[in-house]
């Protein structure tokens, strides 16, 4: 079970990194990347919880695993819309920025 513990720590660290990046990285694409990292960290924690619940001859609890799959698809959908939006914004404004005041002249 050390793997589970190690990956829990990895997940926590990844969430911390992602939160940091989400706050300070100004470009929406970087924020999007941070969000995906945040998502993967959360999913990893769920995976560890699944692993803790190994029983009935399975290596992990299948319910969280199935939920993570759904979660990954939902996160991907968000990414697709966000990429569409930021490319359109880039096309319209010349630069994709999320705060008006971040548009450096």
């Amino acid at each position, binding site marked *: 079970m050390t793997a589970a513990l190690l990956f829990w720590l990895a997940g926590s660290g990844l969430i911390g990194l992602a939160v940091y990046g989400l706050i300070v990285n100004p470009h929406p694409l970087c924020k999007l990347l941070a969000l995906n990292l945040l998502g993967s960290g959360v999913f990893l924690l769920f995976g560890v919880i699944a692993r803790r619940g190994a029983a009935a001859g399975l290596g992990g609890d299948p319910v969280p695993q199935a939920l993570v799959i759904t*979660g990954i698809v939902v996160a991907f959908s968000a990414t697709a819309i966000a990429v569409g939006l930021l490319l359109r*914004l880039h096309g319209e404004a010349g630069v994709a920025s999320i705060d008006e005041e971040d548009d450096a002249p």
Partner: protein
Amino acid sequence: MPLEALPVTDSTAGGALLVLAIVMPAVALVALLGLGGRGARTIVAAALLVQLLVAARVALLVAGTQAPLVYVVGGFHPPLGITLRADGISALMMVVSAVILAAAAAFAWKDFAQPRGKPEARLSLIFWSALLAMTSALNLLFTSTDLFNLYVGLELLTFAAIPVVAIKGGAETVRAALRYLLFAVFGSMLYLLGIVLIYGAYGTLATAEIAAHVTPNAATLAAAGFVTVGLLAKTALFPFHLWLPPAHAGAPAAGSAVLSALVVKGSLFLLMRLWFDTFPTLRAPDDMQLLALLGALAVIIGSITALRQQRLKLLVAYSTVAQIGYMFFVFTLVPTDAGDVIAGTAWTGAWLQVVAHAFAKAGMFLAAGLVAEILGHDRIRELGGLSAKAPLVVLAFAISGLSLMGLPPSGGFSAKFMLLVAALAEGHWLWAIVIIAGGVLAGAYVFGVLSRMMAAPAAGVELATVGRGRQLIALGLALVALLMGLLPLSPIAFLTIGRLP
């Protein structure tokens, strides 16, 4: 250690209606995409009509049996499967959202028409699909009892709202949509983290099972924190409202109406559901002061900012920021001992605020949309001549404003009065002062706009004519908010049907 099993709740008569409420819009959405946008409006009209009937039937059944409707999807009981459940507040919100969605659709009927004989139009396909998805997502949020299923519902709602915001194109609205999406996804990730912890602690995602076993251990407290904060981001409570004003001001009028009236309420509903029904024993009104504090800041700063807006739609959007604030007092104002008169008063006041704001704000956004159409702009300084040209629009704005100001008779007054009674009875003087001050500020911004509307038109301004039907829709929604004020000022029993403990 498996948790001790709760008595199994089976589907009740009429429970299948809940499935229909969620799945029928999805069926319509699939049909819309598959058949192309050409039959879009027919499909939407049918779907929303079904929605109205289903919601009304659900409300009648809940009121008739005085018990919640339950549907166990696929026959698999929790914790394996998912159960849908409609209690009093679910039924109320289902009816409210069905009515407002239908009104918004009727309002948008011409704007998003598919030109006859032309190839499928983008506006038509996108707008109607998004509206259908919203319907489905809202009903899911109102009835699901599975935390992960609710997560899917939250995302569905956000993804349905994004195209409505971005549909007009233009850098401003696209940026608004992007802000909204990124911040909302941030929120949902935090929510998801919370439910991961809950699953880790309790091995189930069903709200009833969690409520029965919840203990205030570290994991649960952290989970509650994550879930709450995630939902705050989606509800746009100050200072997490960064996305709301540009998004709600940038969408087409019917879209803004639905976004402000219903979409922000989806996550708020879930937040209330969680604290009152899922972690009832965890909620200590004193710890919730933080939420009340943010709510108070929202009321004051949102109202002042609204007062200083130059554009009507932004003013209305900031008014939403302020009005959301009132709803967050409920977490402190409802005492923990159930059955208390004060508890019933605060609870009823909060739901009246949710519903009255939904109708008033929908009416106001539709009126603001008509204003922009008549004048060709929505600069508040140049609203002159409206009252002569379109008195019904001004009337709709005024009546909605009455409810937002909290003057009787209106739902807004009843809500505010009951929240005030609860606040003062429990000695929350500060919150009472904020609620009253918010009403004064709302009076100032509503009156500021009304007096401009009444002014003489500037010379040489061409005013367009808008259809009587759409004016009446805006007016009708505002009147609902007004008529709610005729309800007696006492706790409403319907709102407590089927509440857990």
